[in-house]
């Protein structure tokens, strides 16, 4: 029986998040009121029926460990398969591998052990609510070595720069994987590959001192392999900068986008035990996404409040993203602002950023 396992490779993800990644890796960045970026990749995998998911982590993954726990929230707390967090292991004296190859090298047993014969590889920065079953069917029908998933973008923006572009020929064959900035067919970083082939490519890359599995082992070997393309054209976002992070959060305040991303099957995240949102007498909330545990007694417009935020009376929050457990005292005015977790804004403060460049406050500050 053909089965896929998931692999979320967080090594070598390109990101410019400044304050937001001082203490966490990019996969753990909060998004859309109650999620972390990794929830999308992970939920898409489990919603596609995968029962086994590995995550390659290198740096700053303590908050990620805490978020993922036993994998229970994604139904991945299994005796067989389930969720495996694979940190690097530098202690093999015979290890010559580099870059993300060292993860594969050090976890070879893990890959050999599982039941799946195909691997779906993903990063954490392509955000969508999608089901990979259809892509997998195409992968099996065409008997492709590799099926890369791309999405056509309406407008080429800076966050797309980091991604390869896909040139598709007949029968979905990939005839080019390029850095052509004019090509709107952006590779999502998601691809399906035969597991045996993956391990072969790993061996090749290590033998030839390569550092990047996809770039060196697949892109540069394109003509040796049967690589096909699968087009995803649903709602999506690429998030790898503060600007794209802010813009994509704001886009969700349009109902249509919100409903597109949060259709069933739902994206799953770690459960919390927050009570429902409490709106008090002075609350005036419009066009906003509010997570449980908030207490709102001020004006909130076109903004996102994460879990447990308190907004006191006579305060106004506009076009802003307020992360977990921030406390906004009375008479505060915030516009085009991102507050990371646990920020405390004192009475009477005014903070105004621009819509291109929001003002960011790192976590646990008192301002």
């Amino acid at each position: 029986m053909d089965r896929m396992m998931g692999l979320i490779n967080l090594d070598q993800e390109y990101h410019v998040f400044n304050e937001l990644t001082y203490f966490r890796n990019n996969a753990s960045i909060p998004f859309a009121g109650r999620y972390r970026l990794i929830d999308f990749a992970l939920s898409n995998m489990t919603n596609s029926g995968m029962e086994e998911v590995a995550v390659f982590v290198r740096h700053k993954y303590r908050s990620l460990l805490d978020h993922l726990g036993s994998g229970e929230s994604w139904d991945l707390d299994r005796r067989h398969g389930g969720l495996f967090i694979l940190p690097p292991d530098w202690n093999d004296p015979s290890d010559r591998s580099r870059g993300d190859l060292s993860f594969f090298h050090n976890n070879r047993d893990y890959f050999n052990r599982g039941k799946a014969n195909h691997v779906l590889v993903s990063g954490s920065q392509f955000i969508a609510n999608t089901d990979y079953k259809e892509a997998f069917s195409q992968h099996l029908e065409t008997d492709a070595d590799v099926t890369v998933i791309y999405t056509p973008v309406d407008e080429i923006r800076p966050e797309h720069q980091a991604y390869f572009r896909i040139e598709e020929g007949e029968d979905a064959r990939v005839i080019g994987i390029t850095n052509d900035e004019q090509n709107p067919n952006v590779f999502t970083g998601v691809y399906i590959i035969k597991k045996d082939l993956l391990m072969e490519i790993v061996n090749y890359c290590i033998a030839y001192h390569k550092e990047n599995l996809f770039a060196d082992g697949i892109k540069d070997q394109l003509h040796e392999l049967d690589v096909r393309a699968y087009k995803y054209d649903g709602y999506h976002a690429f998030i790898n900068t503060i600007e794209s992070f802010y813009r994509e959060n704001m886009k969700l305040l349009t109902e249509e986008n919100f409903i597109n991303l949060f259709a069933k099957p739902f994206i799953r995240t770690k459960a919390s035990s927050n009570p429902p949102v409490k709106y008090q007498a002075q609350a005036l909330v419009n066009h906003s996404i509010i997570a449980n545990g908030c207490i709102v007694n001020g004006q909130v417009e076109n903004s996102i409040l994460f879990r447990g935020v308190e907004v006191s009376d006579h305060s106004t929050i506009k076009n802003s993203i307020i992360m977990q457990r921030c406390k906004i005292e009375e008479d505060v005015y915030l516009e085009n602002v991102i507050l990371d977790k646990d920020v405390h804004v004192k009475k009477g403060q005014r903070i105004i950023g621009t819509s291109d460049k929001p003002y960011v406050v790192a976590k646990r500050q008192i301002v």
Partner: protein
Amino acid sequence: MKECVGMLLAGGEGKRLGLLTNENAKPAVPFGGKYRIIDFTLSNCANSSIQTLGVLTQYSPINLNQHIGNGKAWDMDRRNGGVTMLSPATGKHGGDWYSGTADAIYQNIHFIDQYDPKYVLIISGDHIYQMNYQSVLAQHKATNADATISVIEVPWEDASRFGILNTTETLEIYEFEEKPANPQSNLASMGIYIFTWETLREFLIEDATDPDSSHDFGKDIIPAMLGQDKRLFAYLFTEYWKDVGTIQSYWEATMDLLDEDSGSPLSVAREDRSKQIYTNEANFPPQYIGGTGRVTNSFINTGCFIYGDVSNSVLFRNVLVKQHASIHQSILHPGVTIGENVVLERVIVMENTEVPDGVQVYATKHAEPLVLNQENIREHFSEMEGMN
């Protein structure tokens, strides 16, 4: 060995809750925007480190079983102990319906014995309150009691509607009176007991053989213990406590949640991490408040979409309130859809009900709040049509 095993009586049918308990056991009725009534008692157990708990049901209600599951939400998925559902059928070849509260415990003596506990805590699953049972247990040990009964002061004029405990100044109980005409005390039993298991075990076995007994703690076991000069003490509870046995009290308890001075659980939980309320968490997106939404003095849960006016109300998950709708002093259970121009006041709308555009339903201030479901909404609607 476990020091204290909990036994939660969750068999109440809750007939006085009318429609709300038509499809649901009373402990499983939704309450407080995201909880079920029994969550408050289960959370008390979790917050009191009671990790071995038998839940006694009169039958084996599938939604209660599924809600509690393996008890993980309350950290009761333990290797030794944890939560066990005990229906009367859990014997070798099935058993009899429990004929009273004491009989329910009697029929599960073997369950309790396997943990060899020193104490047994007996509670029920249909009250809204936050109590640390360890405090009761501490008093029970300090007084070297055979039984400790939690009590609450009720207004003197209401005392004759309760089971009243007459005590000495040190709170030692010398008499129990069920609904006394002339109450000598206003300390009402809350139905929360800690017994020294060895003593209770003897009384249960004796009571079981008595054909005249109604096998009830209040009516039979407590008087029998008093008759044999056992040491019984009252534990005085002074915080928020509410029985949600009727539609009116269910609605009042919900409105209490919105009043931050009422001392009701959600406000307390916010201030005190040791009093959090836990439930089996669903996984819905956060709520979306549209451009035309207006919400004040309300609790709203995940998955809601609000385009209308909501005030002094509690909305469970996945509720849609369309434009120009106005919801006041009402409770909307999960999955309810409120059409445009709907007006509701003092109304409880049951799970997954669709209220069509333009429907207006009010309960007047002193009347019992109205309960709507998909069937009776049509009646209200056609009545209204008739009126116009």
